[in-house]
């Protein structure tokens, strides 16, 4: 078992770190204060190839593996969670679903421009009345001839106003689980309206919004998978979205740790640097523990994806652990900073506000607890899927196709 990152992985991580250090970190606080997404973020991430990092070259991507995706997310969130959110929805929830479930035609039409960064993508599952209760989705898709007509509201959708493509899950039949179907929706279609949600506790430098669909006509070819597969597809999307959240939250813990260490060295009280006090040391020790454990958990999940092994349980575990730990780490980081931690002159209060979102979305911590207990008690088992996330095959991924 080799726990070392390959040279390639290290270089990928360093490159994204350089990008965030040079271009994002110096300005992100300002955008967070303004509660606006900086207009350069998506284009720059597109330009640098980050938006297609783990998609095969033949589908417009950079041909790296799922581990690289995780490492990239760790770096992005160490700068600000909103950058990792871009990867969560564009890549984890949407693009990887196309890779897993899409027809060749759908991959060509939608995945390629997304991987190239020509189009941004988001994921529309949650509704004003349905979050954890996915089966409670009310939005509908009615088959009419060669088309589907969509109606409904999706809420808490990251990049709703910035993306061009959305993967939406709507009801095509009454059965709570078997009645859901997934669709690829171009957001510039007639009948689609989007808007931003303001006044969020965190993720303020990001874009969170709503999508409303009123008699939106889409071709039947935009349906992803079969009718009635929507729930299964949504769950598999979450396996990938959650992975990015787990990796990102790990980066957030690291950011809290680094900020705390820096402050502990720089601040003096009672004639010595505060790093010398045991209770400050304790906080830092726990951050180290959380960071290293979270890191191993997400890397293991990424490795399993590379191998083509079903990883719903392992990814859920990584996400649950890392997000809860990042919330604690941020809270303690503020404590290390004392009164200064309470001011937005320092980054740690932003880390805390951002961390709270992650324990809610992509499966609340509570949902993950139920999942883990379910697996352990034998109440829950993963059934095989009709389409699995392809394992990473370097030759296939890197060839021009």
């Amino acid at each position: 078992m080799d726990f070392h990152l390959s040279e390639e992985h290290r270089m990928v991580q360093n490159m994204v770190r350089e990008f965030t250090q040079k271009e994002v970190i110096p300005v992100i606080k300002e955008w967070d204060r303004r509660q606006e997404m900086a207009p350069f973020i998506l284009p720059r991430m597109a330009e640098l190839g980050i938006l297609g990092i783990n998609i095969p070259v033949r589908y417009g991507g950079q041909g790296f593996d799922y581990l690289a995706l995780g490492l990239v997310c760790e770096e992005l969130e160490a700068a600000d969670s909103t950058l990792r959110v871009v990867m969560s929805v564009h890549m984890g929830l949407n693009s990887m679903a196309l890779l897993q479930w899409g027809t060749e035609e759908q991959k060509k039409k939608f995945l390629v421009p997304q991987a190239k960064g020509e189009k941004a993508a988001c994921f529309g599952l949650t509704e004003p009345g349905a979050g954890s209760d996915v089966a409670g989705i009310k939005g509908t898709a009615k088959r009419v001839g060669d088309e589907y007509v969509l109606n409904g509201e999706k809420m808490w959708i990251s990049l709703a106003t910035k993306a061009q493509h959305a993967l939406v899950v709507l009801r095509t039949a009454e059965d709570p689980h078997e009645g859901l179907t997934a669709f690829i929706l171009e957001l510039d279609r007639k009948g689609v309206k989007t808007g931003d949600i303001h006044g969020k506790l965190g993720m303020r430098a990001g874009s969170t919004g709503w999508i409303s669909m009123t008699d939106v006509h889409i071709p039947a070819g935009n349906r992803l998978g079969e009718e009635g597969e929507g729930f299964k597809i949504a769950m598999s999307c979450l396996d990938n979205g959650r992975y990015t959240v787990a990796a990102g939250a790990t980066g957030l813990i690291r950011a809290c740790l680094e900020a705390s260490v820096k402050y502990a060295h720089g601040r003096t009280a009672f004639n010595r640097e505060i790093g010398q006090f045991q209770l400050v040391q304790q906080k830092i020790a726990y951050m180290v523990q959380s960071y290293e454990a979270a890191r191993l958990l997400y890397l293991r999940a990424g490795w399993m994806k590379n191998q083509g092994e079903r990883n719903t349980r392992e990814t859920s575990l990584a996400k649950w652990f890392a997000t809860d730990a990042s919330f604690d780490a941020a809270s303690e980081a503020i404590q290390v900073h004392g009164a200064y931690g309470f001011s937005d002159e320092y980054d740690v209060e932003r880390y805390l506000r951002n961390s709270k979102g992650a324990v809610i979305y992509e499966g609340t911590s509570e949902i993950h607890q139920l999942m883990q207990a379910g697996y352990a008690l034998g109440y829950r088992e993963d059934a095989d899927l009709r389409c699995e996330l392809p394992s990473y095959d370097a030759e296939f991924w890197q060839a021009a196709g």
Partner: protein
Amino acid sequence: MKIAVFVKQVPDSAAKMAVDNGTVTWGEAPLVINPWDEYAVEAALVLAEKYGGEVSALSLGGESAKEALKHALAMGCGEAILISDPAIPSPDAGATARILAAAATKLGVYLAIFGKQAIDADTGLTAPMTARLLGWPSLTLVAAITQLDAVAKSIRVERGIEEGRQVVEGKLPAILSIGKDFGEPRYPSFMGIRKASKAEIPTWSLAELGIPAPEIKVSWPEIFSPPPREVSGDLITGDSAEEIASKLVDKLLAAGVL
């Protein structure tokens, strides 16, 4: 049309440097490509893109210098070569210049580009020395390359001098060193990273360059930490900006720096 760019591996600029028994140490800080050399690589790539050509990155150093070379490859250089020989464990600027001059000759390049200086030894001598050895024009501290004519074999650059900019035209082949105004170096691309990690980097010894070990002219009998600055910082306070300003000016006048 071949362009060579010389890169060096150095401790990260944020490293805490110390001396331990006469050896320089940098703790946990990573070794990175000399930041100025990234500008040199950028310049080389811009020229190759604009005028056509191949960029070869070279480094004089130990095995670990291959990482700096991989960074250059990942930025887009076509090939990378390590120059290493146990006969020259710590060359001075002159010895380095002799070795790099031989490499430039062996490669048959029409331009060899350096970064302004290496942030470890901070000499800034190697580029003009290499130029002198080759008998090529030395165009140092280049802030912009405005023209390159491979047929007429001439190049026009703007150099950053104390007084502003000097525009110089020189014959090719030439040596350039790149200053900062040139433009921000590109990041390694993902495709470049893949290529770099798979690349074979050959090692040239002095024998392959056809030169004997050059003489070292400069020796370093001692390296030490600078004496700690006795800074007893005074915080100047007051009830108003004017009061603070007045007190500060009093102190500065007393210190004799006004």
